C-alpha cells in the first residue's frame, strides 16, 4: 500500500473538480493590481473572496513602513523570540494591541492559526475542559488535539446547549474554557455573545473569543464583536489575526487575567517557530494604528456588504442568516455550485468555493467577502453576473428573483445600512450548525 493511498477519496474529489473546470487550490493570479483587482489567466478579475475587509494591502503608509523596516532590520528574524530574542517592533506591537483593546497583556504569534493553536492548547491543561462551538475554525479544532484537556462540543451558536454541558460539569474540578468565534467564516453568521457571556459568568467558566473576522469590522472603534456587544470586560481571552482586515500576516492573544506571560514559556506554537519578520510587524503596526479611526472605511464596508447581500437576496439566492461582510450563497447541488463558481471566474469574478465537510449542513457554499475598497460598480457587476449565471443554471428563477440587474442592487445600499452598531435581522432562522472544522 502506497503512502498516499489513504487519500484516494480526496484525490477522486479533486479530480472530479478538475474535470469540470478550474480548481480552487490551483488558481494562480498573474498579477495582483489592487485589493480588489487581479489578472487571472490573462483576464481582469474582480476579487470578491479575499478577507481584505478594509482594503489595506496596498495602503501606501503600510507598504512604506514595511519597506523601511526591511531596510533597517532585514528580511527575517530567523528564529523564535524564546531562542533568539525579540525585536523592538514585537514588544511595541504588543503594547499597541493592549492599548487598542484596553486590555492588560498581549502575546504576538506568527499567524492567527498559531495564535489559536498556541493559546488554547496552553490554557487548557490535563484536568481542564474545552467547550467549543461545533462550527469552529480548523485552528480551534487542531488546538484541541494539541491540548491535554477533555473536549466537548456544543451546537453552533447555541448558548442553551452550552449551558447544559456546563451544568453537567459543575462538580468536576478542572477549569472550563469556552471557545467561540465572532463572525463565522463560512456563513458570516454572528455569535450571540451576550448570551454566552451570561452563561460563562453563571458557571464560572473562562471565555475565549476569536475575533478573526470582526477586527476592524465590528464595533465603533473596530475592536470586534466584544466591543460591538458591550461585553469586553467580561471576556477573558481574545485571539485574532493580522491576515484579514490588517492586510498582512500574524496573530495575537490578549487577556486581562493576571500572569498571561507564562504562556510564552508553555505554548509550543509560540516557542518553536520563527517570530514575525520586521516588515510584517511594521505594516501591522501601521494598520492597527488606523483601525480605531477608520469609521469611514467601516461605513463603506457595511454599505458594500448590504449592496451585495440584498442584491443576491433579491436575485433569489439563499444566503447566510445574517448580513455581514461575509456573504455566502448556499447551494445543495454540488455540480451546479461548481458550475456557478467556474462561470463567475470565466466572467472575471473571483469568489471562494467551500465544500463539505468544511461547511455547515453539508452545503456547497459560494463564499464571498466584501471589502471597503470595492466600488458599488464592481459589486453591481458581480450581482448581475451572478444573477445571469444563476438563471442559466436554474439555481434561481425569474419569479423568485426580485431584481435582475445591479442597478436595484446599488439602490439597496442606500436603504438603512446595518452598520457596525446594529444587529441585523436573520432572514432564515438561525439553525444549529454541525460542521467539523471549518477551513
Amino acid at each position, binding site marked *: 500500500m502506497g503512502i498516499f493511498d489513504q487519500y484516494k477519496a480526496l484525490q477522486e474529489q479533486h479530480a472530479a473538480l478538475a474535470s469540470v473546470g478550474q480548481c480552487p487550490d490551483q488558481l494562480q493570479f498573474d498579477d495582483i493590481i489592487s485589493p480588489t483587482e487581479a489578472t487571472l489567466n490573462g483576464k481582469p478579475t474582480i476579487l470578491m473572496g479575499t478577507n481584505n475587509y478594509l482594503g489595506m494591502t496596498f495602503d501606501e503608509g503600510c507598504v512604506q513602513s514595511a519597506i523601511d523596516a526591511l531596510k533597517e532590520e532585514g528580511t527575517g528574524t530567523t528564529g523564535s523570540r524564546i531562542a533568539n530574542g525579540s525585536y523592538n517592533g514585537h514588544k511595541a506591537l504588543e503594547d499597541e494591541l493592549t492599548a487598542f483593546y484596553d486590555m492588560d497583556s498581549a502575546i504576538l504569534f506568527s499567524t492567527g492559526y498559531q495564535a489559536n493553536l498556541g493559546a488554547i492548547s496552553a490554557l487548557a491543561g490535563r484536568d481542564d475542559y474545552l467547550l467549543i462551538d461545533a462550527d469552529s475554525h480548523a485552528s480551534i479544532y487542531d488546538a484541541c488535539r494539541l491540548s491535554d484537556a477533555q*473536549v466537548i462540543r456544543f*451546537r453552533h451558536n447555541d448558548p442553551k446547549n452550552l449551558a447544559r454541558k456546563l451544568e*453537567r460539569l459543575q462538580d468536576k474540578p478542572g477549569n472550563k474554557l469556552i471557545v467561540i468565534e465572532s463572525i463565522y467564516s463560512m456563513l458570516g453568521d454572528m455569535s450571540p455573545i451576550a448570551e454566552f457571556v451570561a452563561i460563562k459568568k453563571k458557571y464560572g467558566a473562562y471565555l475565549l473569543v476569536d475575533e478573526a473576522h470582526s477586527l476592524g469590522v465590528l464595533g465603533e472603534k473596530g475592536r470586534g464583536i466584544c466591543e460591538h456587544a458591550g461585553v469586553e470586560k467580561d471576556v477573558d481571552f481574545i485571539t485574532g489575526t493580522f491576515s484579514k482586515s490588517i492586510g498582512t500576516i500574524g496573530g495575537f492573544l490578549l487577556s486581562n487575567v493576571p500572569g498571561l506571560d507564562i504562556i510564552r514559556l508553555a505554548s509550543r506554537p509560540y516557542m518553536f517557530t520563527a517570530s514575525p519578520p520586521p516588515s510584517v510587524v511594521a505594516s501591522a503596526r501601521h494598520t492597527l494604528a488606523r483601525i480605531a479611526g477608520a469609521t469611514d472605511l467601516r461605513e463603506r464596508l457595511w454599505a458594500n456588504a448590504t449592496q451585495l447581500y440584498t442584491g443576491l437576496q433579491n436575485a433569489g439566492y439563499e444566503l447566510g442568516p445574517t448580513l455581514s461582510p461575509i456573504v455566502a450563497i448556499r447551494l445543495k447541488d454540488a455540480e451546479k455550485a461548481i458550475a456557478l463558481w467556474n462561470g463567475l471566474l470565466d466572467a472575471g469574478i473571483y469568489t471562494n468555493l467551500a465544500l463539505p*465537510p468544511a461547511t455547515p449542513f453539508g452545503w456547497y457554499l459560494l463564499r464571498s467577502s466584501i471589502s471597503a475598497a470595492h466600488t458599488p460598480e464592481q459589486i453591481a457587476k458581480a450581482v448581475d453576473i451572478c444573477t445571469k449565471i444563476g438563471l442559466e443554471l436554474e439555481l434561481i428563477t425569474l419569479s423568485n428573483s426580485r431584481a435582475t440587474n445591479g442597478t436595484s442592487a446599488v439602490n439597496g445600499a442606500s436603504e438603512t445600512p446595518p452598520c457596525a452598531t446594529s444587529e441585523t435581522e436573520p432572514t432564515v432562522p438561525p439553525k444549529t450548525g*454541525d460542521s467539523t472544522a471549518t477551513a
Partner: protein
Amino acid sequence: MTALSSAGAAAAQNDILSEIKKQLISRVENASLVNENTNITRDLGLDSLTVMDFIFDLEDSFDISIPMERIAEVQTVADLAQAIIVLQKEAS
C-alpha cells in the same frame, strides 16, 4: 454483582442500544444495516457532519456530554453503547 442488578444493567444497556439504533435509522436509507456490530462511519457511509448531529441528539437523550476523544475511540454501535454506560457511571 447480584442477579437483580445485573438484570437491571442489561435492561439499561438494551434501552441505550435501542435509542442509538433509533437515532441511526432516522439517518440512513437502509434500516436493516443497523445492528449492534454496525461500524457507524464505515458501514453506513455517514459523513462527519451527520455523525456529529447524531452525537448531539444522543447527548440530549441521555443527558450526558460525550467528549471528542471518547467519540474517536468508538467504532460500532455496541462500542458507543458501552461508552455511554461508562459516561453515565462517571456522571452519577
